[in-house]
């Protein structure tokens, strides 16, 4: 019973977050990064995390998809905890770093679950468009970013197909114990990786065939217009930055 809960895959349901303008989503992402990098305020990070969970709730993507992702990263959390403890950080600082990590993962997941691949490409390209002044090949840059993002869900889907086929022909995964499963994954990984890279290449060709010229600026995609909710969410992000600016004492 395959599901779409792989990081980077689009979850096609109707929701207010799905209807947001992709350019505004990426502008919000850039605004979100500022307090994430700079601020060390526990209160601000708790508020941001609460805000992210409100957006998650509005996205109509099942909460367990987001939580499963955190569960999948449980070993990384343990490693982070150990490294923070070894550096002698206070409990509050350690907590802030863990919340930062969680917020970033969940925020990215929210964007990927609610933005289709073509909107993603369009959003990245338009958000980076100020760099056109420096004559950057933005089409190629956004194509590469989307290919990297699409790589993981494609890898998981391909892996699943390979495991099913291999299981049907004697290399069982679904009825095996954990050691046998690891063995199956190792034996099938080479083929999975090859097939995923082939698919990425095909997707890239397909988007070029659909007039996505990586050497030229792209024609406009008819997408969700900027609405009240876009402006409201952006305003909340600006409030977070303002809070950070007050925290560091610039104002």
């Amino acid at each position, binding site marked *: *019973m*395959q*599901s*779409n809960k792989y990081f980077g895959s689009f*979850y*096609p*349901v109707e929701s207010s977050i799905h209807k947001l303008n992709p350019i505004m989503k990426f502008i919000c992402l850039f605004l979100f990064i500022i307090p994430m990098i700079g601020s060390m305020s526990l209160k601000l990070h708790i508020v941001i995390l609460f805000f992210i969970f409100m957006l998650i709730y509005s996205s*109509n993507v*099942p909460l*367990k*998809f987001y939580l499963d992702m955190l569960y999948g990263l449980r070993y990384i959390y343990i490693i982070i905890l150990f490294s923070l403890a070894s550096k002698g950080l206070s409990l509050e600082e350690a907590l802030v770093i863990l919340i930062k990590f969680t917020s970033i993962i969940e925020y990215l997941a929210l964007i990927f679950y609610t933005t289709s691949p073509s909107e993603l490409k369009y959003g990245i390209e338009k958000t980076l468009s100020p760099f056109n002044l420096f004559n950057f090949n933005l089409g190629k840059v956004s194509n590469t970013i989307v290919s990297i993002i699409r790589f993981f869900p494609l890898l998981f889907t391909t892996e699943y*197909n*390979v495991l*099913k*086929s*291999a*299981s*049907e*022909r*004697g*290399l*069982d995964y*679904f*009825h095996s114990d954990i050691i046998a499963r690891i063995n199956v994954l190792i034996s*099938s990984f080479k*083929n*999975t990786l*090859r*097939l995923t890279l*082939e698919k990425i290449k095909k997707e890239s060709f397909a988007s070029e065939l659909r007039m996505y010229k990586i050497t030229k600026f792209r024609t406009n995609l008819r997408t969700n217009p900027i609405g009240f909710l876009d402006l409201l969410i952006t305003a909340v992000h600006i409030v977070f930055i303002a809070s950070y600016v007050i925290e560091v004492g610039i104002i």
Partner: protein
Amino acid sequence: MDISFNNVTYKENIGTPLELTHLKNFSCKINSGEITTFLGDSLSGIKVIGNLINAIDFPYIGTIKIGKFQNDGKKIKNVNTLRMNVGHVKKNPNDMLFNKTVRGELSFGLTYFKYKLNKKDIRCTEALKLVGLTEDYLDRKINSLSLTEKKKIALASILIFNPKVIILEEPTIGVSSKEKEELKKLIKLLKEKYKKTVIILTKDTDFAYAVAEKVHILYKGTLVSSGTRDLMNDETLLNTYGLKAPEIVKFISLAQKKNINLSYTNNILDLIKEVYRNAK
């Protein structure tokens, strides 16, 4: 190897907005040595039958008995014995083929089932011949093959380990009429000479009419009708469930409406003979 579905319900993406029920309280029996066809459109649920028989997917409710094995959601011991007895050829060969070369693809099953390992090359060649390809294909890359060739390789990769049950999922999609005829002959050969149980999951009623002995019609995950091939003589029934009546049946029905007495047959040559006799 008899197969039976007992009140099987199968769902996907349970507990999410994308939840989809493929089968609802589905029960049916597939007898050993017969050619059984499951007919239905793309949302009828026929596409999950292969994976359930092969214990790749598990039922949400109910059980599937495959010989001495039972798929009820629990782990199956010696699952490879079951899989060796059931060969499943998928609709899209790209979902099945994952090795680099044809040789690698064909010998994969032999390697992991540890079946006739000393005769790998001979069996690869024989399997290719059975699907109408030559041994020149052995060293070709899977990527360089056309869709039809890939379909044939997918079928050969199953036939090579000699399963008792062969499941063919939409075998006629993207296949020319000449290749369809070859496939019909192969299915009949598998049944008559090698005593195989063949299960065909399709919406191609023309193909099903030519080869099937038993027919099950599914609609929105529910079994709506079961019987012999004669079931497909009922145009209204097929149309009700989104299926097209076979061309040969349409022709005979039309003739009968014009008071020309033709009996139902699935052989076009027999039909021509009968038309000729009537004309006389």
